[in-house]
């Protein structure tokens, strides 16, 4: 009887230990998740990657599937801008993007990131549509694969998807100058 009780007590202690270990594990993971640097970029790590991966995404208005490698053949250079209607800096850079939209060798491609279709269309109506192509990345996975740190983010690429310039955060007049320099070279 006593041996049995001792066995039970032992079992209980082992069980408690396991549960506490599990709880500590959960706590550590969640704590790490909280503190984790949420800017994450798998392909762009150490700036080694110089080519943008190819992808297909639905068109924002029509939902037709669009393949990146096909549409970038249309012009010498493509400016890929990742944006969202809920992102305030995106509103500010919208005018600058528009100023780039009439350069003949360049086309603007917008990737709408983790957004509601309705909101993103409203955004384009309100602030103007600087993009030749509007792609929608509803769950955000393609943008993450591109190595986006967040919104807004901009890539300048050539016909072969080589990355010529990557801008994290909103673009400003200096960036515009730089883009124009690269294009005119």
């Amino acid at each position: 009887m006593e041996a049995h009780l001792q066995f039970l007590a032992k079992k209980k202690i082992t069980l408690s230990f396991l549960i506490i270990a599990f709880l500590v594990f959960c706590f550590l993971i969640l704590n790490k998740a909280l503190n984790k640097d949420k800017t994450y970029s798998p392909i762009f790590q150490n700036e080694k990657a110089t080519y943008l991966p190819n992808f297909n995404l639905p068109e924002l208005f029509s939902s037709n599937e669009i393949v990146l490698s096909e549409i970038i053949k249309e012009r010498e250079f493509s400016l890929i801008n990742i944006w969202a209607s809920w992102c305030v800096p995106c509103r500010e850079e919208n005018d600058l993007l528009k100023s780039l939209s009439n350069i003949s060798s360049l086309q603007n491609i917008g990737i709408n990131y983790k957004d509601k279709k309705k909101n993103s269309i409203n955004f384009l109506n309100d602030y103007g549509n600087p993009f030749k192509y509007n792609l929608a990345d509803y769950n955000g996975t393609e943008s993450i694969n591109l190595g986006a740190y967040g919104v807004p983010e901009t890539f300048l690429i050539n016909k072969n998807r080589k990355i010529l310039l990557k801008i994290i955060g909103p673009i400003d007049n200096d960036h515009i100058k730089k883009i124009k320099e690269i294009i005119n070279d």
Partner: protein
Amino acid sequence: MLSNVGFLSLFFGLISSFVVFLYSVLNIKKNSLNLEKKIYKFLTLQFFFVVISFFILSYSFFISDFSNATVYNNSHSTKPLFYKITGLWGNHEGSLLLWLLVLTSFILFFFFNSKNEIKNFRLYTVIFHQIIVIGFFIFVLKTSNPFDTLFPIPPEGLGLNPILQDPALAIHPPILYVGYVGTSIIFASALAAMVTGYVNSIWAKNLKKWVLISWTFLTGGILLGSIWAYYELGWGGFWFWDPVENISLMPWLSLTALLHCISTLEKRDLLKSWSIILCIVTFMLSITGTFLVRSGILNSVHTFANDPSRGIYILSFLFILIFMSFVIFFIFESKNLENKKQIFFLSKETSVLINNWFMIYFLSVVLIGTVYPIFLDVITSEKISVGPPFYNKLLIPFLVPFFLFMSVGPSMNWIKTNLKFKVSYIYYFLLTSIATGITVYFLSQKNLLTIILIFSLFFLIIKTLPNFLKNNTNNSQNLSHLGFAMLMLSILFNSVTSTEIIKNIKVGDSFISKNEKITFKKVRTEEEKNYSSIIGIFEIKNNNNEIIKLNPAIRIYNQPVVATSEAAIKTTLFKDRFITINLIKDEQLFNVRYQNKPFMIWIWISTLIIIFGGTFAIFSKKKNYP
């Protein structure tokens, strides 16, 4: 100035909580009536101080006092009065104040209402509950003070997100919070019952009211959230398996399990440990919900400024509570929670257990779907998103046995059921088969799983309906079960028969959907106080030549400037017609989305029936069902 008073009042509230805590601890050893009166006094005082802060914040919203940062960030002077007030809980700081208000009112109500119960049980409940209250007081004061002041005083506020300016959403948080916070009483009371050895039928009977209150309000809160998503978000759906939705569903599932379990404890003095575990788990899930929403942990990449100290605070608080309950459970488990009775195979006890297994399974699926991406991200840096296909695959097949058990469970007896063959079973079976046959024919469904689901749901309804006629029956239970069956049936019909058409058309054009001709008549503009709208006038002609008019709109709000699209929805008993329009830049065309959604209204009606069931149970005096 006013803001300082509000802050000070919150601070005094915190001090009162400490006093209550201290007096309760002191009173456990002593048995002084004087001390009990003091506890009463300070509980009232604590509630009173929170009420004062709450009123001050409401008043600041009312008079648009932009020296208050919370008001500045979330209100605007031209906002309609109703949304000025509801804007109070449309933000982090204000919603926490509301949370505190409900929390402190509940413990006061509990203390007032439990005078007949054992003294030490009441005191321990207050002690455990005060730990939660103090935790939240410190959280508000330290990380999310709703009374931060701004200087110089801004002339105008930033405005409330227009998507939140909706009556269903405006009352959604208070209802949901009553549900969430109710679980804190359940939690504190479970720990107290364990410490004092009071886990018995009387405790279960008293606790059942709180379980019912939480459950009913949580159901209501989820319903309002879904209604808002359906009418306001403009996507035509009502449930998206979004993490924020999931975290309200998880406590609901464990509360449902607890509700069934606590009846067993009440009637048969069984399942003690399990009931206690469910009580604890339910509250933990509520806090986990708060943690996941407030910390911003759910969005892997985003631009909203989020204060990480909030997340860490709630996380630590959550784990302290888990650890505390764990220790208490292990110390007192063997002492107080021994089950000596045997459970027979064919009995109501077994059916309650089966219900609980299913609930725990559903709960685990939702929990894993919600939390797994976070864990995976930390451990492997891989990003995944878990969506409807995951939940559909894992949940739907298990619904079939669940419905079947649910149809027979309530007719089981406590202790032991003798299985006798009755002729009525053949009738039930035939009736169900005929109903399923007819339905499947009309829906022209060929999917086997859908047919089986329809069959099991019809069986559940047909088996539940006669229960209303029996003597000595628990009608609130029957009502809720019926409502649940109808809800599942409506969702099923709705999902298999909905149709959608998206077209870009000009004014004057028309298109055909199924047997209906939709014509875009004209466009009109209107000005309101806080927005201007572009309204499309549509006419739908069905094959009986009846004409239905629908006027979807695009609203452009002025503070902040945001455009939203207002769906026009024509609800009839059998289907909803749902139409939204969007502008297409630089063209004469409008993007029109037309959806036919059968049985939409039945989703709301059946959820309301579930809620009615819960409400009847709260107010029912008769408690001795077989």
